[in-house]
């Protein structure tokens, strides 16, 4: 359900071709194949001799991350879920859990992490969190109270004030922060394409055109502009 909402949301904000973009978005998500990504990445980055490839398959980093990542993720969960009784909360916990994904991406490659963590997951986290927060706020309004008036929440048995706040922190803020930070990470890793330019085109085509013709001239022009 959040998928549908998400797609319409993004077409409203981000695209002029509303009728095509949903199809394109789903096509993009499916056509992100690892071989294609690998080719596009190395083609782009090998053209810069000063900059090593950002991904090195390191025998030190990978085992370290394998050990640290579960601990850090558990810490993020603790910070999120125990925010009512100790320092922390949804924002900090969500940021820590997103940082675990960054860590995995640095150890095992950004592109393979991108394929492992589908766009649907990232979007569902961000949109779902926003909807849950708004929903918890609006349910009391529907029952005749004020926005976020927790004591009107229809929660059986448990204390509605405490668990309403926990719901906002755990199911609202933490997913929004984690999803948006992961999304920013993947967006920045892929970067800006000036070749395709417009909205609505599949990113597959843009990447391929860059692959064949673009990167040398484009990077040279960029570098020249910088100096």
């Amino acid at each position, binding site marked *: 359900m959040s998928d549908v909402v998400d797609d319409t949301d993004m077409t409203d904000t981000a695209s002029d071709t509303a009728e095509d973009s949903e199809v394109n978005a789903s096509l993009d998500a499916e056509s992100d194949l690892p071989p294609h990504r690998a080719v596009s990445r190395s083609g782009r980055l090998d053209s810069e001799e000063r900059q090593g490839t950002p991904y090195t398959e390191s025998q030190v980093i990978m085992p370290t991350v394998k050990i640290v990542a579960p601990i850090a993720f558990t810490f993020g969960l603790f910070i999120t879920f125990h925010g009512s009784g100790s320092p922390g909360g949804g924002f900090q916990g969500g940021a820590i859990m997103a940082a675990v994904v960054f860590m995995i991406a640095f150890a095992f490659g950004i592109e393979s992490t991108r394929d492992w963590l589908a766009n649907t997951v990232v979007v569902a986290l961000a949109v779902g969190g926003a909807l849950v927060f708004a929903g918890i706020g609006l349910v009391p309004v529907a029952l005749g109270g004020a926005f976020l008036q927790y004591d009107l929440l229809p929660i059986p048995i448990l204390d509605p004030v405490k668990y309403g706040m926990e719901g906002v922190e755990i199911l609202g803020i933490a997913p929004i*922060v984690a999803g*948006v930070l992961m999304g920013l990470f*993947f967006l920045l890793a892929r970067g800006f394409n000036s070749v395709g330019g417009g909205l609505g085109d599949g990113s597959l085509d843009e990447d391929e055109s860059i692959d064949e013709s673009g990167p040398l001239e484009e990077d040279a022009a960029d570098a020249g502009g910088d100096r």
Partner: protein
Amino acid sequence: MTAPLPASPVVAQVTAIEASLLAFVVLTALATALARDVLAAVIVFGAYSLGMAALYTFYRAPDVALTEAAISAGVTTVLLLLTLAKTTRIDHETAFESVNLPAAGAAGFLFAGLLLTMSDIPAIGSPDAPVWSNPDVTQWYLAESYAQTHVENTVMAVLAAFRGFDTFGEAVVVFAGGIAALIVLHREVFA
């Protein structure tokens, strides 16, 4: 209404750890501003944030420290590094920028002006500091937050309950930030 104040954290003087942390933060801030190589500046900026997080912990603001460590030292550094990986790195002969004298003069003037107000600022942890001792805000929250929200962490009680609508606005801002990044980068999918 105000209950007798709980023992407030009085820090009589700056301890050695605090002093070294403060010096570390100031030095890394200067290095960030003056480093010629952007990569070095980003890494030193991460160290600065880590020092600030430790400092916040010493001043008993663990919530702020967690945010500083996770967002500034961790996430921001990673995002800046990712951006740098997309650019060309220029070899510099010198490690530091030459200081722009008018800018340094303006900054020094501002610093001196701020220094003049130092005598009116209450000591760190002073029980008389207005931010701590006022009965209508801080003490009211400390006294009432558990009774009204049934949550031990007063910071979370303020954020999620008393100022819940503001927090909703912040969450929406974070969400809108993600959408804005999509628009700016001409993307329709995050991953």
